């Protein structure tokens, strides 16, 4: 196995849950005299996932010494310093150098912002997160900004920022498609239309729903599909009409609850109705993290903070890698003056992004392609 392929084997071992194999490989690299930056970075990353932050920092530093342009090694090094604690001066330096090296790497700016906030520089963190939002990989910054808004400006601004952060998120679309798939047999047109929802092609989805409704005007699946497509187009009232018709025909129909609840949250003063709708959704889809997140967000808007905390905690339990769930939980924890726990969840969100999101492997692959 050549060094260039060695880290691929480590990646596969990690993905298959054979952490012992990956850790043994990383140990081997630590004791070796290898000068291959990719191999060193992969080993550093394995150390980081094993919480061996000092070893991760050592290996990543070796990778950077071999190649000052090794972007993934900077990400591992900065994360290792952040996790070590009390090393903000070093982590901030690493993130700054990385941003000079890869100014369009969104994840670097998000992590830099999180280091700046932890170091007591919220103004600088805000600037960095704002720069991260439009960049690929910088989506998580929207949630960080909402938390900062809450901490600095209070609930009104914080809730508005939370709603703003949620609006471009496609999680509701994915939840709708899942709810539709789990709600029983579907007409073929509705099934095809739901795929259009996933692709964000609202017009095609509306047309599919319309064709189905011309055949069967009382098809609840087609009514809900029309509602979700109209919601994607920003036609909230029309979406509400279609979803309420579906709920009249079949009370508690999960896909229609997704549409109706989302439409309620977009209108001021209807938070209470959104809560009641999403409570029904959670009963229908108890294992769906996004359903709990939507309920938690509605509860926050309704001023029912302790219940929001419980719902957000359930969302994180359902999917620990859901950054939105972590952020909503952090929001509810900040309202309860539990700052340490709140920011702990933000950093766990970052960990999941690095590990499950495959950021490091993607960056290593990009280097391989470039070379």
């Amino acid at each position, binding site marked *: 196995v050549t060094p260039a392929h060695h880290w691929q084997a480590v990646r596969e071992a990690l993905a298959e849950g054979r952490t012992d194999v990956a850790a043994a490989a990383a140990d081997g690299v630590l004791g070796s005299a290898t000068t291959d930056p990719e191999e060193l970075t992969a080993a550093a990353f394995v150390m980081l996932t094993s919480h061996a932050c000092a070893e991760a920092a050592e290996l990543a530093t070796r990778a950077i010494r071999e190649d000052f342009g090794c972007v993934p090694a900077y990400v591992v090094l900065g994360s290792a310093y952040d996790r070590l604690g009390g090393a903000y001066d070093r982590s901030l330096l690493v993130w700054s150098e990385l941003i000079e090296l890869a100014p369009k790497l969104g994840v670097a700016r998000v992590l830099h912002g999180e280091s700046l906030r932890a170091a007591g520089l919220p103004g600088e963190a805000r600037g960095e997160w704002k720069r991260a939002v439009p960049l690929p990989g910088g989506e998580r910054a929207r949630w960080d900004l909402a938390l900062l808004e*809450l*901490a*600095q*400006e*209070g*609930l*009104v*601004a*914080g809730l508005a920022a939370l709603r703003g952060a949620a609006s471009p998120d496609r999680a509701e679309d994915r939840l709708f498609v899942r709810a539709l798939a789990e709600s029983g047999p579907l007409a073929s047109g509705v099934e095809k239309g739901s795929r259009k929802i996933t692709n964000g092609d609202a017009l095609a989805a509306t047309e599919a729903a319309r064709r189905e*409704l*011309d055949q069967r*005007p*009382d098809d609840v699946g*087609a*009514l809900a599909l*029309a509602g979700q497509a109209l919601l994607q187009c920003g*036609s*909230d*009232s*029309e979406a*509400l*009409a*279609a*979803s*309420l*018709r*579906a*709920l*009249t025909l079949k009370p508690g129909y999960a896909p229609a609850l997704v549409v109706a609840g989302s439409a309620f949250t977009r*209108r*001021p*003063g*209807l*938070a*209470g*109705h959104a809560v009641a709708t999403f409570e029904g959704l959670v009963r229908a889809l108890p294992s769906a993290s996004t359903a709990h997140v939507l309920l938690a967000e509605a509860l926050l*808007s309704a*001023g*029912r*903070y*302790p219940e929001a905390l419980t719902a957000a905690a359930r969302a994180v339990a359902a999917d620990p890698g859901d950054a939105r769930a972590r952020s909503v939980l952090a929001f509810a924890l*900040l*309202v*309860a*003056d*539990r*700052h340490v726990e709140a920011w702990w969840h933000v950093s766990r969100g970052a960990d999941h992004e690095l590990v499950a999101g495959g950021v490091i492997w993607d960056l290593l692959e990009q280097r391989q392609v470039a070379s």
Partner: protein
Amino acid sequence: MRPASEEGRVNDEAIALYRALVADDTSAALAAVQRCIATGVSRSEVFESVIVPALSALGEAWAQRRVSEDVLACSGVAVDQVMAFAAPPDVAPDTGIVVVVGTAEGDAHASFPTIVGSALSLAGHRVVDLGCEVPDVAFLKASDESGAAAVVVCASTDAAATHLPRIARLLARSRTGEARLIAAGAAFAADPGPVAACGATLARDAAAVSAIVTPSAGTALVEEPS
């Protein structure tokens, strides 16, 4: 349970609203909702019993091609208008209750009092936000000047929490002497002993502060100073 006559009237208004939406007649739609509100039906019930059935009927008519895509799209404008009447505002109506909020000296964390203050504002209370690192006597001064019904002392550090007994003694000398002392924040939640000792009420989070300050149904509101 509503009397049958009222039930019938609400149903009639739901039908009237549906017809107004189909006819793209915003003023008729508003009139249907306003008639309901004028007869004492709550906003929540107007939403549940008038707007929801009317929208559902509109969805049915669209699905059956009894109304066109254009009519459905145009109805959105009227729906926006009637929703504004039926939906309660996000911020509760003014209660007239004044609450002083601040963090005691020894604590530079401003976020918790900011969150507490905004939660109280959303609940309709008038908030005097003193910020952080507030001298003890400033709580008394603000309370006397504003005629506050409650003073919320926040503390996330032990150093700040030690100021509570002195603030309690100062408030006891208040000219109005009516302000209720509330201790909020992590430091008091971790060690509630001194809170009870000085006659304060412990609130573990922003929601608890709001619940303590908000009067229960039937309690008279604090009158505005003349």
